[in-house]
């Protein structure tokens, strides 16, 4: 990955193969105005916008072949089941899972992680067992483990990050011990942008026989993922950040592990037989999909994945790294602005404060200028504590952002300074 500090980086002026203006035309919302100004959407870390093909696939499903899945013997039901299962195959191909049977659909990555904590966690973890997280986890990858701590007395250990926001493999190794039972780690910090060296981390963890869960919520959006190459045991992500619909998430798990897990929620589709006294459960992935699943959302996610595949994750990565490099350059020049997260390996996320300005005031003025950013703790309170701040403003970039958007951001920051200081 490219360093954001080097402006001589070959990618910086080289997103020629990627025609961003053309790409933008696929996203109807991007041409709207906010407070009378053109929308500059820099809140992709929270959720991204949807290309027309995604919205169309949703409409088409409802208007031409919608039905419940796995249930009816009729044509529409089979047509919907095919599309739903085809979405599972699309996801499997996208992250290079060995089989679509390794793919569980959930409603969000939050649910994916909770599922693992409540099934695998509750079955295999006991008091005194240790789970290693990092200091830069999203609450979604802290609270489920905290709840397990409350329930069964496991211990949580946190790998600290450096001032630059880098993950420290050596500190991680120091935390590993005979009681370590799981590593639950983000692939990419939603605040700092830092990419965690997952492959290396998995090697180390596996050499000690410890499985690894990866929170890929941010990672999967910014670069191409190969769960077999990473060799992680679980990988979760959420559809709405990957240009897909809201209400859909994914959990990948290795076959033997999924097979060893008890079910999560109980209901239709996840059972084999139910009598008044006894219940037997279905095989994975169905064992973990109780009730009517988010059918059309899975179909929409599949359309989103095909869309980014068509653009190419490599091209998206290069394009975003170009924006990131430019943003780094431009923001560094703003007086009083402090960037958090300056790792050499980072995704296109820029969190910062401007000294003397309250972040809420700053974000509010950016909003009046049509610029959507996020402000606050970013569901990462421990990380805010680590950096001793109450909140940050975050500009997180997506495949449709441009250098021009960075210019708008910088202009608006200067305006805010003028208004508030």
């Amino acid at each position, binding site marked *: 990955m490219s360093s954001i500090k080097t402006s001589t980086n070959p990618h910086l002026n080289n997103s020629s193969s990627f025609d961003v203006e053309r790409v933008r035309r696929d996203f109807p919302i991007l041409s709207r105005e906010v*407070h*009378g100004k053109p929308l500059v959407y820099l809140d992709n870390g929270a959720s991204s916008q949807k290309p027309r093909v995604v919205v169309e696939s949703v409409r088409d499903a409802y208007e031409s072949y919608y039905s419940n899945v796995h249930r009816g013997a009729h044509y529409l039901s089979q047509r919907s089941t095919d599309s739903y299962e085809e979405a599972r195959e699309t996801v499997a191909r996208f992250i290079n899972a060995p089989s679509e049977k390794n793919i569980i659909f959930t409603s969000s990555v939050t649910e994916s992680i909770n599922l693992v904590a409540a099934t695998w966690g509750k079955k295999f973890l006991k008091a005194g067992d240790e789970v290693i997280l990092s200091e830069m986890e999203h609450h979604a990858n802290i609270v489920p483990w905290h709840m397990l701590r409350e329930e069964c007395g496991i211990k949580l250990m946190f790998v600290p990050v450096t001032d630059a926001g880098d993950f420290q493999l050596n500190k991680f190794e120091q935390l590993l011990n005979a009681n370590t039972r799981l590593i639950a780690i983000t692939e990419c910090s939603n605040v700092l942008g830092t990419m965690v060296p997952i492959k290396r981390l998995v090697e180390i963890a596996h050499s000690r026989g410890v499985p690894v869960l990866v929170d890929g919520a941010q990672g999967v959006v910014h670069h191409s993922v190969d769960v077999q190459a990473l060799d992680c045991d679980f990988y979760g992500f959420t559809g709405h950040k990957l240009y897909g619909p809201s209400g859909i998430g994914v959990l990948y798990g290795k076959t033997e592990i999924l097979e060893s897990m008890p079910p999560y929620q109980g209901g239709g589709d996840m059972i084999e037989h139910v009598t008044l006294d006894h219940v037997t459960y279905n095989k994975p992935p169905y064992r973990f999909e109780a009730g009517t699943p988010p059918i059309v959302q899975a179909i929409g996610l599949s359309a989103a994945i095909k869309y980014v595949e068509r653009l190419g994750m490599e091209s998206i990565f290069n394009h975003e790294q170009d924006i990131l490099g430019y943003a780094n350059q431009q923001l560094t020049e703003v007086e009083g602005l402090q960037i958090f997260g300056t790792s050499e390996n980072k995704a296109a996320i820029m969190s910062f404060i401007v000294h003397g300005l*309250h*972040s*809420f*005031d700053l974000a*509010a003025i950016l*909003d*009046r200028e049509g610029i959507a950013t996020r*402000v*606050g703790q970013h569901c990462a309170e421990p990380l805010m504590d680590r950096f001793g701040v*109450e909140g940050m403003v975050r500009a997180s970039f997506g495949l449709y952002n441009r250098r021009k958007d960075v210019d708008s951001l910088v202009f608006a920051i200067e305006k805010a300074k003028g*208004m*508030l200081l």
Partner: protein
Amino acid sequence: MNASFELMRYDEFVEALEIIDDEDMRFEYIIDVGKKTRDDDFSNDWKTEGNLMHGCMSKVWIVDQMQKDRHFFKGFSDAIIVRGLVSMMTESFSGLTARELNTLTEEHVRKLNLGALTTQRQIGMMAMLEHMKLLSRSDRVIHVDKI
């Protein structure tokens, strides 16, 4: 809205905001109110956990100083825009009795017509009003007469 008491400061705000017909300028008006509320208007001693109003995106402190049977609020926030809003609320609704306070409704907030404000902040102001009502009934009231 047919209060039998007067809200002079409130009426001033309503009038000032009515005259301004540009959203951006209304926004700047709030910033101005915020800037005018100086740090030294709100004692550091009041910036306690106990005086925090929960559920806001930035820190908001409100205190209720009671003189005779009338409540006088003071508020502060670390963010200027919110500080402007808190000031407008506390100044608007100070000087009332508990009974009078309780007659205040959403309409009072809505009538400020802070179009520049997004709904969430409107809700935030409603929450402030509710918070002030609750505060006035709590044991946190500072009885100035007794000091």
